[in-house]
């Protein structure tokens, strides 16, 4: 798990978008607001799903909006926690603490892989 600001990510994302088919790296961003039970659950659930389905092919950025409130606007965040699949395109958005992992898998479009 890596906490990251916005800088660098966007640029990297753009580069990676071009060769996503080749590299196949999944870029996921999880928005939380403080260490609430839902947030902690979401982080744990996300890591578990990724390890199961995408071992070694994912990258997770956890963004705490209490620290970086200005980032909420960019990804149209309303609900917390929200998981944004930035890559591969198209962008997907899943809200909730991911305790319903079936739905999370469907939402991330992971079931086929």
């Amino acid at each position: 798990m890596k906490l990251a600001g916005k800088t660098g990510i966007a640029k990297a994302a753009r580069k990676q978008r071009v060769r996503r088919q080749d590299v196949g790296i999944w870029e996921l961003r999880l928005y939380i607001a403080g260490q609430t039970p839902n947030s902690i659950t979401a982080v744990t659930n996300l890591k578990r799903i990724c390890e199961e389905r995408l071992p070694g092919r994912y990258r997770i950025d956890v963004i705490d909006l209490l620290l970086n409130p200005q980032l909420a606007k960019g990804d149209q965040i309303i609900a917390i926690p929200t998981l944004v699949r930035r890559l591969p395109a198209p962008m997907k958005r899943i809200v909730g603490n991911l305790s319903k992992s079936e739905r999370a898998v469907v939402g991330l479009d992971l079931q086929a892989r």
Partner: protein
Amino acid sequence: MGTKVRNRKPVERSLRKSLTGIQGLDEITRGGLPAGRPTLVCGSAGCGKTLLSMEFLVRGATEYNEPGVFMAFEETAEELVQNVRSLGFDLDDLVANKRLALDFVQVERSEIEEAGEYDLEGLFVRLGYAIDTIGAKRVVLDTIETLFGGLSNAGVIRAELRRLFRWLKDKGVTAIVTGERGDGTLTRNGLEEYVSDCVILLDHRITEQVSTRRMRIVKYRGSSHGTNEYPFLIDEKGFSVLPITSLGLEHQVSDERISSGIPRLDTMLGGKGYYRGSTVLISGTAGCGKSSLSAHFAQAVCQRGERCLYIAFEESPGQILRNMRSIGIDLEPWVKKGLLRFQSTRATTDGLEVHLAKFHKLIQEFEPRAVIIDPVGTLVQAGALRDARTMLTRLVDFLKARQITAVLTNLTSGRDSAESTDVEISSIVDTWLLLRDIELGGERNRALYVLKSRGMAHSNQIREFLLTEHGIELMEVYVGAEGVLTGSSRLSQEARERAAALSREQQMEARQRERERKREALEARIAAMRKEFEAEDAEAARLVDQDRSREQELGLDREAMGRSRQSDEAGTAERVPEKSNGRADSARV
């Protein structure tokens, strides 16, 4: 402020209010929206919720030094900027100066998958960040109910909205939350349960294909407020509510009198004409000279160097100018001088509210001292009768408050009673001139009388009203044994009277001559008699003389005799009577 809310103290003695800066709304809310609390603005689609709330923010930012945050759930920031530019609001500028923050919240159900528990903390973070960045005092959430469409867990949304409104109160921001009108409820999702301090309902009704916007304050906790439905307008100057009662009857009155343009009519109106700032109604049947009377007034206004606005619903300016020239009133120079302005529109082109807005705007721009509306009755075509009347009442109040003299004309159809108007505005006018046809002797003639004129001793006479080549002339009508006569009946009656007068005069002259003749005859007789008397008198005198000389001679004889007889001097001569006054005697003849 914040502490007050947190301690949940009862409403302070006078509720703090936040002026909206929206024309009229502050009047009906008696000072604005509740400060530091959310207000719900609800209404059906397209009723002006977004514009009302945007103007609330823009006025706050520009006039009250209260920056604001606009959180839009339905329109993007770019769309908003474009949409309100037509109202003269430059949002880009306000955003650049940190007086305003726009945030578009996109809630698209198809893009959102729900997997597990969540809350809406993200929304709080965004809003809190926007508020803190510009130090906002005002917040608009437009339309937050969209959340119900975007997220499936209504229970969470309800709980979070409740928390949001509490949070807004704690932040001490004055907020407007908009909501779409539901079926039988104020909002689709029952927002009124959460926002209960102040609820404003906007309405957009279409009656006979003409729309009218209305506003009502459903509820205002802790404050009195206007409870009526108030019409409102949205034009290029923004939102304006037109509270009828707020204009009220508190306008200043003037003692100044101004001419009606017709000297004889001024005489009928207590000798001096209309009061400045009064409202004059000229009603009458078709073609009886209402417009001509108005044109006379317009001319008189312009001759005093004052501006006059002529609102015509039935004729184009060119037509009015031509027609008035035919009765000797040339209005064109005044138009060229900029003292007279025509506004010709069909009553049916706009709804009443739009008409009213246009008049307001025109009057504010042109600043006339007199306004003519010819005719007001056609406004009924643009709306229902009651609406037309309230609209006119508001217009009259508006004009009175500005001391603008108003002349309204109204067409009465032959069927109706002449002493009524189709818009029933007679009670709000100060002076009422009635023009009517009098049908007599195969002619239709015009007559004018003053039905009422508040505050002056006006004439009770009917005057015949003539349209001549040099304007309107008022004539006395013939009132006699044969009733009221006008037109050629009056003329022939007058001729008959002239003939009768002539013959009476001739008779009198004859009588005078007779008298003269008699006097002359009498005097002739007197002269003759006097001559006769003088003749007799002379004769008598002669006889007296004869007698006297005879007597004298007798005396002499006696003296001589006495002398001869030596008698003494005792016996003197007898006295002779003096000659009598013949003239005095003759007068007695």
